[in-house]
């Protein structure tokens, strides 16, 4: 009798702990989807490493952060964390011991995420096999190396708060706003950060910088804004990485490949709805292009024309009209944008847009390592010649 009773108690204990750990398969599947939407693995998986076991270096002006292990390993991961502690991390920017998280983790975005969704992500992470992998210490500049300083940062720049629906707007707009502001953490790259690494008080309207690329502003049609785009086209760009003439390259290609292509059509359409409705703001150029005398400009254009004829024209057309294999350059906003950094990246290093269901076999841009700095600069001046 006693042993039976014990067995029943044990069974209950197992069931109880299983439910506390969110072993519900539906919730885990939801958590997996949401972890995709947040692209958690983008930082928390090292190149060639095990999923979510951490170790990827995240470069910043303040030093290099190493995204920690978020598998359920007790010693090196978050195996000892309760659901409450996980919520505190995403919602309040607090570590399990209560100390502040560095905002290299975009909790200023994740604070918008609702509790049920955070719990689902927690359940999903707990459902994965724990991986023992110690977290390398961050390599930070001395002036931010004292973690308690982040309390001051949070006091100045961080306001926790779940997303609240705007009843005046459509359900689709609200769903999009929730995803873009929260898990999608689009602003983490697409909004310029101030001297303290915080977004939000940008007076220039500029986008941000990531991995040597410029993440263009989502508030300007001249940059990456989707205002005025047909919704289906905007959604296709986000989900397939290509829509008509437009495609994504560089870090955004990774975002589409690892995150956006896995989201439901409805969710991506909702994100497009919200992004297309963002208010428009002019972008103040970061610095003036080097001022050239007429003679210098003529020399650059002449060299640029020659480089263009030799290397670009076959695919992009003699007038920059583009072809099936290569985008149009004339009137292309990626070409015309005030910041020419991305053009330098694309011409020098080439690259492919992501291969996705909607664009499984993307054409790519060859790298041009052999061009001198002068030739590279000249060909960019040449393809931008109509942009003033």
């Amino acid at each position, binding site marked *: 009798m006693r042993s039976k009773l014990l067995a029943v108690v044990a069974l209950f204990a197992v069931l109880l702990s299983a439910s506390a750990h969110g072993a519900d398969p539906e919730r885990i599947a939801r958590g997996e989807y949401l972890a995709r939407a947040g692209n958690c693995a983008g930082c928390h998986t090292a190149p060639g*490493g095990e999923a979510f076991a951490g170790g990827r270096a995240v470069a910043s002006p303040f030093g290099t952060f190493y995204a920690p292990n978020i598998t359920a390993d007790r010693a090196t991961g978050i195996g000892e964390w309760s659901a409450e502690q996980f919520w505190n991390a995403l919602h309040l920017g607090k570590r399990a011991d209560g100390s502040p998280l560095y905002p290299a983790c975009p909790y200023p975005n994740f604070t918008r995420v609702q509790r049920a969704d955070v719990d689902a992500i927690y359940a999903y992470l707990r459902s994965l096999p724990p991986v023992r992998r110690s977290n390398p210490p961050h390599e930070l500049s001395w002036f931010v190396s004292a973690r308690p300083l982040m309390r001051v940062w949070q006091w100045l720049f961080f306001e926790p708060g779940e997303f609240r629906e705007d009843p005046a707007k459509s359900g689709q707009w609200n769903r999009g706003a929730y995803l873009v502001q929260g898990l999608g953490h689009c602003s983490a790259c697409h909004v310029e950060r101030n001297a303290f690494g915080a977004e939000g008080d940008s007076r220039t309207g500029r986008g941000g910088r990531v991995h040597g690329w410029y993440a263009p502003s989502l508030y300007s049609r001249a940059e990456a804004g989707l205002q005025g785009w047909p919704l289906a086209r905007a959604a296709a760009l986000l989900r397939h990485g290509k829509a008509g003439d437009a495609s994504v390259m560089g870090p955004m290609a990774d975002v589409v490949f690892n995150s956006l292509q896995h989201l439901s059509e409805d969710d991506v359409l909702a994100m497009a709805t919200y992004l297309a409705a963002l208010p428009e703001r002019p972008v103040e150029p970061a610095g003036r292009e080097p001022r050239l005398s007429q003679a210098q400009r003529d020399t650059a254009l002449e060299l640029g024309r020659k480089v263009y004829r030799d290397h670009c024209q076959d695919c992009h057309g003699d007038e920059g009209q583009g072809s099936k*294999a290569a985008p149009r350059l004339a009137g292309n906003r990626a070409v015309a944008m005030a910041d020419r950094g991305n053009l330098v990246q694309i011409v020098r*290093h*080439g690259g492919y847009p992501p291969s996705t269901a909607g664009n*499984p076999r993307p054409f790519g841009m060859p790298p041009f390592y052999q061009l001198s700095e002068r030739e590279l600069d000249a060909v960019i001046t040449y393809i931008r010649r109509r942009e003033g």
Partner: protein
Amino acid sequence: MTRLISVAGAFTRRAAILTLVGMATASAAPPTDSIEQRVQPCLACHGETKIDLEGGYVPHLAGKPAGYLFNQLLNYRDARRRHRAMEYMVSHLADDYLWEMARYFAERDVPYPQPAGEPMSEAQRARGQRLVRDGDPARDVPACQACHGERLTGVQPNTPGLLGLPRVYLMAQLGSWRVGTRRAAAPDCMHTVAERLSPQDIQAVSAWLAAQPVPAERKPAADPVVDPPLECGSVALPRP
């Protein structure tokens, strides 16, 4: 060893630039909606018209087993094999597309120039040849021929040929296997082999292989190796 790798690295940069300058004048434009057009970014470095075996670092791709090329593309994408430009190029390409690219290069049949014959001491030649043909049983080093084929032109489906490759490239690969910047599916037999080789072995075997003429029949052997000396995880990796 580190010096060997850094020397190879320095070669890489110089040679990559040389090769690129060579290919800059591309041949006739391919049809637009074709796989040839889609691999233009690859050809920027892996050009076929001016394969430069002397100073070049970038390896040729034509005629290698498709399974081998596919595995390398996955290794780059998933960072088991480290090379900045390659990782960047393939980091968001899907398996099916990478397989199509691998098949394209595997089916190419382009003539190879004969090696120029870089200077090599008699001792190096003897050591290199012995390692390739007999291995070194005392240290449990199998012969290259035991797995890469009698003619050293590779074995279907996943084992690459070793001829027609630049010496610096071969040296850099063996060095990378030792330090773990090139990895393959477990058990990673080439890591095991490279660990048993001394830097002098690596220099000798690379110099010897790079000096061999590329045979007229370059196709990888069709039949799998019977009773291979080491177990290799990548030999039987599936295709998409």
